[in-house]
Every structure is written in C-alpha cells, then in structure tokens.
C-alpha cells in the first residue's frame, strides 16, 4: 500500500496553483504547518483549504550568503514570515521585493510559480505593487 505523506495535500495544492493549509472538520480550526492530526482537538479528519490571497509581514531576514542549491546567485534575497492573524497562522515565504524596503505589517500576496528546481512554489509580492489582493 502506498504511504500518503503528511505534506502530500500541500504539494497537490501547489501543483494546482494553490497555497493550502489544513482545516479540521471536527473543530473547524485551521492549522500550519500541516500535521497528521489537529493540534487543537487531535482529530485526524483534516482537509485542505486555500489560504487567503494576502497576509501581513510579521518579520523577515535578508539572506546574503547561502550554499543552498539554486539560491547562490540570488543573494541578497528576502525571506519573511507571513501572518494570518484571523487564523493564528504564520508561515515562511520568499519575498520578491526590494530587500532594503521591508516593513513589519506590510501586506503581501502569494502566487505559485516555478522555483529554482522547477517545482511549483509560493512567491510573495507587495500588494501595493500589483499583487492579487
């Protein structure tokens, strides 16, 4: 029998062009990161739902040195933590913007695009700069 990995639903979402988190059918809470069961009520009855288009920047770093394959030539680049306060969710995302002009609270929206290895991955751009708010 094929084992279904805990992040399979996330991958499937990206393949459809969607950034998904888990929603618990038992208690109605959303959770991130994806887990085998709900951290709020321990139910295994989880499904995948698309995250809202935009989130607020909670914090960030600008990576100036890396040995990570595919990213060596991209430095300096910004990686942030994006926040959905309404769901108490925060997740890591690559910020496609000027790394010198970041501000906590700034709104970013995601799109799914081919990453350095060709796989579909979320990329976040400032909403004011024409993102899909």
């Amino acid at each position, binding site marked *: 029998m094929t084992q279904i990995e805990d992040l399979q639903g996330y991958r499937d979402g990206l393949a459809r062009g969607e950034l998904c988190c888990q929603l618990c059918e038992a208690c109605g809470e959303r959770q991130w990161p994806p887990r085998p069961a709900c951290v709020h009520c321990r139910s295994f009855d989880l499904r995948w739902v698309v995250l809202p288009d935009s989130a607020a920047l909670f914090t960030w770093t600008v990576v100036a*040195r890396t040995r990570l394959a595919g990213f060596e030539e991209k430095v300096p680049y910004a990686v942030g933590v994006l926040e959905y306060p309404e769901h108490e969710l925060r*997740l890591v995302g690559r910020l496609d913007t000027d790394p010198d002009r970041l501000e906590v609270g700034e709104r970013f929206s995601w799109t799914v695009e081919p990453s350095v290895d060709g796989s579909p991955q979320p990329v976040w751009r400032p909403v004011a700069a024409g993102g899909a708010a």
Partner: protein
Amino acid sequence: MDADGGRACIVGIGQTELSRNSGRSITRLALEALLAAADDAGIDPVAIDGVVPYPDSVSAEDVIPVLGSPDVRFTAVAHMGGASSLAGLRLAALAVQSGQADYVAVFLARNASSVSRVDTRVRQLAGQAYRRELEYPHGMNTPAQWYALACRRHMHEFGTTREALGTVALTMRANAQRNPGAQMYGRELTMEQYLSAPVIADPYLKFDCCLETDGAAAVIVAREDRARDASGPVVRIEGIAEGHPDSADDMASRWDVFNTGLTKAAPRAFGLAGMAPSDVDIAFIYDCFTFEVIQQLEEAGFCGRGEGGPFVLDGSIAPDGSLPVNPHGGLLSEGHLTGMNHVVEAVRQLRRQVPDDRQVPGVETAAITGWGDMGDGALALLARA
C-alpha cells in the same frame, strides 16, 4: 537534587584544543577529552560505567572499548540540538542519583570546521519535512536565517538595536583576549569592524554568528560521596531542567515567538536549586548568535522580556558587570563545542582554576543555558560544594 550519597556533582572536566582543523578523527578527539576528564576526576577510566554522547556524532559504543569498562550500565542520548549538552548533563545527574551508574561521562566531539559545517548538520534536526518542503524552496536553510527572523521581530517590538547586538559580540571577543585557548585569542574586534563586516542573514552580520570549531569536551558526573579524588573543589549540580517550546518542530509558526524551551526550563531549574536569578554570580549563555544571548538573558529571568538590549548595553554582561557572561569568550569567540565548553569553563571558574585576569572574583554560583533546534532550551545551576 539530593540523594543518599549527596547531590550530583561534576567531578572531572576535559577539553581538547579548539581549532579550525584538528587533523584527527572525532572519535580520537572524544577519547582525548574523556581521558582528560577521568584524569581530572582522579579515577581510572575503567570506572566510567555511564556514557552520554551528543546526538548524531561519536556514539557511546565508539568510546567504550578504549575507556575499558567491562560493564557500562547506562547510556542515553538527548536530541535537543545545541541544548543536548545540558540535557545530557541532566540525564547523567539523574542516572547517578538513582544509582543506575556511578560515573557518567557526558561528551561532545566534532570536526565542525574542517568536515561537517552547519548547513549539513541541521539536516539531522527535528521537523525535517518542514525544513525540506516549507523552508528550503524559499531559500532558507540555516540557523542564522531562522534566528534572524526572531531577532528582527524583537527589534520591531522592543526597539532592540544593532549596537546591542554589537555589544554582545564585542564583549565575547574581549573576553577571548584573556583566554589563550580561544580561537579568537589575539584578534580583537572594534565596533567599527563589527558594523562594517559582511551581512550573513540580516540583521546578522559576520560577527553576530558563532565560530565553527574542531574539538571535544567531556565532563564526568558522580554523586558527591564519590568525588573525593577530584583535582579541584567539587561542583554541585544544584538544579537542571530542560524545556520544549510550543510547536517544537517549527519556529516560524510559533505564536509567541519568544516563548521558548528556556522560558519553561528556567523556573523549574531555579525551583530545584532553591535559587533565584539574582543568586547567580556568573552566566554562561548559549551564544550561537548575538541576539540569542539577549533573548536567553530575558527568558532565563536575568532581565524582563524586551529589556535584554538595554541590559547588555549598560555593561551588565561584562566581566565587571552585575552578571558576567561567558568569560572564556563563548561560542562567538572561544569556540563552538555546542555548550560543553561552557560547562567546562563554568567548572573552572567555580574551582578558581583560571588565570587571575579571566577569573571572575568570588564566584560561588553559575548558570548555564542551552539552546537548540527550533528553540529547545535547558538551564543548569552549579555551585561550589
């Protein structure tokens, strides 16, 4: 932490030189530190009947044949990243107090500079699926980057400054100038040099980041009644505890980002020891990065949350401050033996075995913090017996 034969004590310490390239195997480094610790404890290595290695490195089985005990009774490994050194020390204390072993060696050996650097080592930490699928594709794969996120947020919430980070770096570097064994001995650092150094992961500049080191350190833990032959005064483990943050396998999603393992471990350790933060004479803070010193000073209770910046800026952590920190230079400037070198130096300071210019006067008690993985934490409180 009383038991029939007295408290758990550190009765022996051993450490190799710290270098960029040891030129020998990690198993050999481990044995050098272990045999030095046995010698310091005044015991035959064959008496070591408990072995607690650091995770994902030299194992107990790798060192038992040379140590020579015919009957090792206790082994255990704590998987808490950099906090594993203190978590291992705690396992050793529990083992000797419960009579599961008489002499437990806790050790770490690594060729982290010459062989396995940090971006390869982190592939052994918790939550690998999250790292691989939810961070690497976005260009994030090192502790400097993870903790830079927490640092930036702390700057935003509490106004923590670049100068506060620099003060931590400069204090550790100045301390290393009194430690000929430090990797940064003879290499002073000015604020100007600190500020003009290249960015690693903003806000972290080069000198906000710890060293990569080859070397090994070991301590031997026994009950107080077995400590007679030790070379120096006995050092008691008055209280020791570990703690795990919420969402222990993922830092970015943690709702209270500053509530880490140490936040939970510290009150437990102080409670066990019957001590308060104000009773601590000297602190060894797990200084993997400058901001983590500020954060841990806060979460251990040496100052309030958000007050760590001003605390370091006013000189509190300097050798003549209210809470001298890392007089050996720490992971930032002595070397990075994942905090086992902090334990070794804490024992040396409590025994008054370091040169006068490095000895913090009148030290009776020491605190040591551990920090690892996604914010696992530990706190040990030691005292001269």
